[in-house]
């Protein structure tokens, strides 16, 4: 007789509140559902009560961890609506800031992964080293999180040669942390043992459920908006799209670990080739119409849709966050696994429920509340 097991909503292993309902038989998970809503704040409605500028601060607070990429995606979409040409220098600076954010986000994920694998030593080491990214971001932008560095038409703070020097020093100091993480994933310690072969998401399934970002790339599909639909200065920078084929938790971890090196490469290049000039262009009136924008967030493809009626307040803003797309993958990955592995599988997509918590869909016929929760 299958029994129901609940994980969450307020359980320590999960950084954020959400509840998983697992249907378990023996020790095997046969079905899984997610219940969200603990983070729902009605953001899409709030978007239509604030001006385009004010909404920058709101977009950033959809998720505090990948806050920068939200403002960038939002700003780029608004720039299309306002027909603004962003200065070249700003485009390069955006790449620098966003890759720093990817580093902090990926390192945080490794910290949390270590935590959920009960590797306390690794957890501390990663979190301690990660502080350096946070310090740097605070130094560059004025806040540790929610840095509000992107604005409509460019960026708000420049990188002086002195700051660039500091970033370079930081990068040199960061490589050892990435090396350490690579080592953890390649020796035969707890990290490898507890993640190899766990929560496999086969290539076809990954496509079918519409996974994005490292979750998708861990299943052997090279998809990265920075390459597929280049924005900011990514089209002019040389970097590799990291792909792993195993589809298990370790593959997703490896993708992220190797990506940290690519991020460093991107930052170095952007600093070396930084064009001179303005960092922000003038704002204009938005046209009447709609625009669509996408970027590669640390967790995968992030999509903004904005409809304008020509006033200074948007008529509709729709956000599709990567974690929303990846939630369906969690359910796939959980089925057939043992209960002990549930925690690390859930963590493996780097779920960000602040991003995802939007709407609960109730099946009208059966009255069944389904797991489809959007931000």
């Amino acid at each position, binding site marked *: 007789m299958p029994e129901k097991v609940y994980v969450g909503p307020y359980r320590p292993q999960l950084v954020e509140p959400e509840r998983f309902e697992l249907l378990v038989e023996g020790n095997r998970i046969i079905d899984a559902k997610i219940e969200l809503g603990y983070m*729902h704040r009605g953001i899409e409605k709030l978007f239509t009560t604030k001006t385009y500028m004010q909404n920058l*601060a709101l977009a950033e607070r959809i998720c505090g961890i990948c806050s920068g990429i939200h403002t960038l995606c939002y700003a780029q979409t608004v720039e299309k609506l306002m027909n603004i040409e962003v200065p070249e220098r700003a485009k390069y600076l955006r790449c620098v800031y966003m890759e720093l954010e990817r580093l902090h986000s990926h390192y945080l994920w490794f910290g949390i992964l270590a935590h959920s694998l009960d590797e306390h030593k690794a957890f501390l080491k990663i979190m301690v080293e990660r502080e350096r990214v946070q310090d740097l971001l605070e130094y560059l932008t004025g806040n540790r*999180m929610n840095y509000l560095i992107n604005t409509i038409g460019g960026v708000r703070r420049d990188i002086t040669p002195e700051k660039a020097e500091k970033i370079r020093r930081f990068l040199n100091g960061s490589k050892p942390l990435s090396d350490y993480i690579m080592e953890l994933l390649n020796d035969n310690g707890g990290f490898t043992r507890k993640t190899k072969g766990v929560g496999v998401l086969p290539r076809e399934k990954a496509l079918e459920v519409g996974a994005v970002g490292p979750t998708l790339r861990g299943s052997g599909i090279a998809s990265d908006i920075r390459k597929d639909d280049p924005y900011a200065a990514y089209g002019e920078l040389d970097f590799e799209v990291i792909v792993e084929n195993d589809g298990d938790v370790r593959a997703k971890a490896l993708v992220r670990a190797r990506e940290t090196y690519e991020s460093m490469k991107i930052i170095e290049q952007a600093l070396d080739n930084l064009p001179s000039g303005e960092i922000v262009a003038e704002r204009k009136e938005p046209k009447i119409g709609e625009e669509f924008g996408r970027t590669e967030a640390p967790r995968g493809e992030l999509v903004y849709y904005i409809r304008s009626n020509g006033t200074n307040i948007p008529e509709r803003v729709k956000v599709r966050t990567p974690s929303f797309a990846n939630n369906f993958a969690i359910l796939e990955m959980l089925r057939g696994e043992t209960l002990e592995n549930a925690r690390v599988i859930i963590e493996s997509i780097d779920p960000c429920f602040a991003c995802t918590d939007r709407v609960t869909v109730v099946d009208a016929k059966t009255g069944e509340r389904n797991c489809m929760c959007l931000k």
Partner: protein
Amino acid sequence: MGKISVYRFLSAGCNGCDVQVLECLVPRYRLAELNVEVVSNPEEANVLFLTGGVNIKGREELIKVYEKINPPKIVIAVGNCALTKEIFDKGYPMVGPPDQIVPVNFYVPGCPPRPQAIVKAVVQILGAKLEDKEDYWATPEGFRGKHEFDRDKCIGCGACAQVCSSDAIDVIDEGEKRVVRINYGHCSFCAFCQDECPTQAIRLTREYHLLTNNRGTAYIMNDVDLLECASCGAFFFPQPQIDWALKRIIEEKVPKYLEFKDEILDAMKLCLKCRREIMNMKKAKKILAELSAKARGS
């Protein structure tokens, strides 16, 4: 107080604050030196850290969690969402801030507060001591912390309130004064107010230790004199803003108006209501017509 065991609760915030609390565990922040640990069950905790503004769904969970916390049951709201719901204030599912649901003892403003701010708050609440280590509390230049008013520069125009991303600035006309109040407990520290202030009267400082036990006091304010209507005597417009506008228009932009400064000032001294009245309207029109004729002639 013996061991402090902290349980974290988050509902309807952006995550930022929760991550900051988590980061406090890093040895660098020395929470452990204060005999503080973070526990994973409310039953084991005697201190509750709240982040986020709490929505309908989080409400019941919060009540359940609160009941399980052991005495002395100190509740600390971390971050502006937990003080005032901040930018999510008008969101339809929001039922917080948490002190509307459970008693809260202390508030740590910030968006998010730095880990150092949280540690310092714990130090102050416990009356403990943390040996000062070099640079531990330091902020980098350009850090966006609590605001500072330059009282001489502020002209009371309210531009800051217009651009504020989080409805954190109130502009209130009371009698002969206009009060501009920045509620930093409601603020997202976006610095739009600093950017847009026409006279650079607002500056975000590097001050970030903002612990309070009354969130109603998390504001700074400034007041300016209002101008009295020459006709009906009502107070209607900030005097310094008129001075500023006159200076800008006449002295900097169109110097040839300079000699009619007093007449222009007279025309500006009528409140909106009086201007709408026909008599005054005619008078005002006449003054303006004379002015422009003179200006053209000269």
